[in-house]
């Protein structure tokens, strides 16, 4: 077999996978191994597949993904911390034929933005929320998030999250699934190829449902913050499987009736 040389394989006509053009060429500022990058890519791939590049408005949060607008080659608004669902509400209502999604971290969505998240979902705003749950405030240096696990260390729970004092991790996704306004609520991950493919399908499904006017679609992605967790990326992914997934089990939480 070794007679096939690399040069023979590496030819444009043999290309089976490369980064979508819907992402710009700007180097992402994320830490090595951070799931944000992967999540960005599959969102972009779905938009590309839908041919919706010129018909989409994304809303970036405050959090590590605040600069998402530098990477997505689509129109993006950068929202105040926690308020992305409010922006998305207005955008979608004013331009109902656009594909509108927010991309938010767990601090953004489940702490300061709790009210906006719940009410947008409760109104059944016809938007998609992509929710990156890394159990920590990445951008500001690894503080405790609403989703930080019991006993998990962070810079504001340096001896581990003490649930007596600091409360329980908030399973906001399960709460949102209770609201009649949400059409599709799922929890996924992006640390292995299989999970990436499954998550991409989930995003596709969410966007398709949005196009049908089904109501709010919500895709949680449990991800790592290797920097905030103070681990190597590979260790972080392993830790995530062992610790985050039992608490935040992957899978669909609510799927449309029909």
């Amino acid at each position, binding site marked *: 077999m070794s007679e096939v040389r690399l040069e023979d394989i590496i030819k444009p006509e043999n290309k089976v996978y490369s980064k979508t053009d819907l992402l710009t060429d700007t180097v992402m500022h994320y*830490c*090595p191994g951070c799931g944000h990058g992967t999540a960005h890519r599959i969102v972009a791939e779905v938009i590309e597949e839908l041919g919706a590049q010129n018909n989409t408005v994304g809303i970036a949060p405050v959090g590590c993904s605040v600069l998402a607008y530098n990477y997505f080659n689509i129109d993006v608004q950068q929202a105040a911390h926690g308020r992305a669902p409010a922006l998305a509400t207005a955008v979608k209502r004013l331009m109902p034929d656009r594909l509108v999604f927010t991309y938010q971290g767990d601090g953004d969505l489940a702490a300061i933005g709790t009210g906006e998240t719940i009410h947008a979902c409760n109104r059944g705003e016809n938007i998609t929320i992509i929710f990156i749950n890394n159990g920590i405030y990445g*951008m500001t240096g690894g503080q405790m998030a609403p989703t930080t696990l019991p006993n998990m260390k962070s810079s504001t729970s340096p001896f581990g999250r003490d649930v007596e004092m600091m409360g329980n991790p908030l399973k906001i996704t399960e709460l949102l699934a209770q609201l009649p306004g949400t059409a599709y609520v799922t929890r996924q991950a992006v640390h292995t190829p299989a999970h990436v493919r499954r998550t991409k399908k989930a995003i596709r499904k969410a966007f398709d449902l949005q196009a049908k006017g089904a109501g709010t679609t919500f895709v949680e992605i449990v991800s790592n913050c290797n920097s*905030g967790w103070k681990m190597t990326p590979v260790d972080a992914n392993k830790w995530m499987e062992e610790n985050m997934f039992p608490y935040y089990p992957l899978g669909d939480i609510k799927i449309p009736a029909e």
Partner: protein
Amino acid sequence: MTEEIIIAGFGGQGVLSMGMILAYSGIMQDKEVSWMPSYGPEMRGGTSNVTVIISDTRISSPSLNMFDTAIILNQQSLDKFENAVKPGGLLIYDPNGVNRHPERKDINIYQIAATDKAAELGIARLFNMIVLGGFLKVKPVISEEYIELGLQKSLPERHHKLIPDNLKAVQTGKEIIKAIQTV
């Protein structure tokens, strides 16, 4: 005496802690000190720098544009701070990864191959102490004994056992620094 220093390098090179040990040592020697870091969002990577001032009198501005000494640990920082050294001042740099060397003619330039030395000795974590040693060799603004006291104050108790190794690295730095140009 007032010594205005900038230390600049990659995020992981211990730039901030080097500055902190220097500052703490200054305090132990009864100096006025200030330590002013560059800071940014959390994401790993990127450059980092800190301005340390050690003085016998009250320090006015902790933030400066010109320095007596620049301690430079990568190319980007060299590009950024070479011109911020006062005429007649001191520039120390680690040549590792540097492809455009300093060009100024009106300043003292020293090289310290701390990266290589640290790798050679298997003490990568003490890289910054080697650099510190080199600086102190050239400008002994802080006496030896106060560096030890500074380490004691700045390291958490549980790391005190590492102080001898730190001091050894400082010693190494003093040995390996070499003058490139003196004015």
